[in-house]
């Protein structure tokens, strides 16, 4: 992981998040230098261990880009990913850590603009949190 801030790890479903990321890049949309994109075969592969390890190793936020509900190639992978994110948010809260550090982001494969927008929203949220603290 580089030294730039904020460090955002994006776990991307190969069916939606990854094409959206590639689309955002092809459009030249602004993305943070320290955005680390990790391709997963399905959003449902975003296991709790992966997410927590990313935070543990210094990520400021972890975003899971998966398909919209009803669009999962594996039927329920996106629903499972969202449930895991919701569960981990409660765990982070119990640790006194902001649950907003983890975000579940449904996205369509051709939505590069939406992908970039959600990443920028996360960057802004992190900035405002840092300014408050």
């Amino acid at each position: 992981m580089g030294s730039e801030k904020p460090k955002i790890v994006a776990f991307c479903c190969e069916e939606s998040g990854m094409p959206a990321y590639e689309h955002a890049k092809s459009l030249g949309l602004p993305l943070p230098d320290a955005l680390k994109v990790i391709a997963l075969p399905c959003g449902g592969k975003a296991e709790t261990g992966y997410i927590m390890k990313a935070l543990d190793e210094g990520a400021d936020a972890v975003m899971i880009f998966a398909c919209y509900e009803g669009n999962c190639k594996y039927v329920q992978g996106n629903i499972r990913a969202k449930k895991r994110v919701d569960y981990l948010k409660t765990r982070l809260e119990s640790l006194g850590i902001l649950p907003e550090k983890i975000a579940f982001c449904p996205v369509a494969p051709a939505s590069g603009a939406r992908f970039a927008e959600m990443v920028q929203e996360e960057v802004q949220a992190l900035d405002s949190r840092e300014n408050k603290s």
Partner: protein
Amino acid sequence: MIIAEQKPMEEILEMLAPYKKILLAGCGACVTVCQAGGEKEVGVLASQIRLARKDAGNPIEVLEMTMTRQCEPEFMEEAEDAMKEVDAVLSIACGIGVQLMAKTFFDKPALPGLNTTFLGFPEEHGVFTERCAACGNCVLHLTGGICPIARCSKSLLNGPCGGSQDGKCEISPDVECAWQLIYDRLKALGQLENLENIIPPKKWITSRDGGPRKIVREDLRI
């Protein structure tokens, strides 16, 4: 299998407060299957502990290990080297595993990361239900394979009681009446006549009422 669930983080962090380096020890048996203390849970909990302590300005080193089984002495050697390095072990095995760690590594505190809850099985993915009370005197042959001790809220041996309504127990509409289940199962087996045999009062001495239990098998002893 033994079903367990993780203790609240506040409680875990409070237990770990005096320590700077711990071993987080999972178990590859029951608690892996019920997803409370297997390899994945070791990874997630270790990260959570490190994050919380770092955030509190009091970092902790967490070694991670998932032992084959924490309930058998022969697997304890898997943790020997790691135990030399740490102040304490946080075990996310069942209470048996925690106690065997405490017995084996007598000079290091063994802390429980789980609450050992009951003996049961997964009803569906993510749903676990109690099935056995380990009473030491099984009556499943009389009750259609459904345990009245573990599944009836009153552990009645000759039920149902007046609290059985529409197949549900009076304690909650989510709890099935064990004796309704027993009736349905015996009917399906063509063994309803079993219900005419009164089961005599149980000898609870084989259960916890007789104190800590012990089995000695001379044929197995070396």
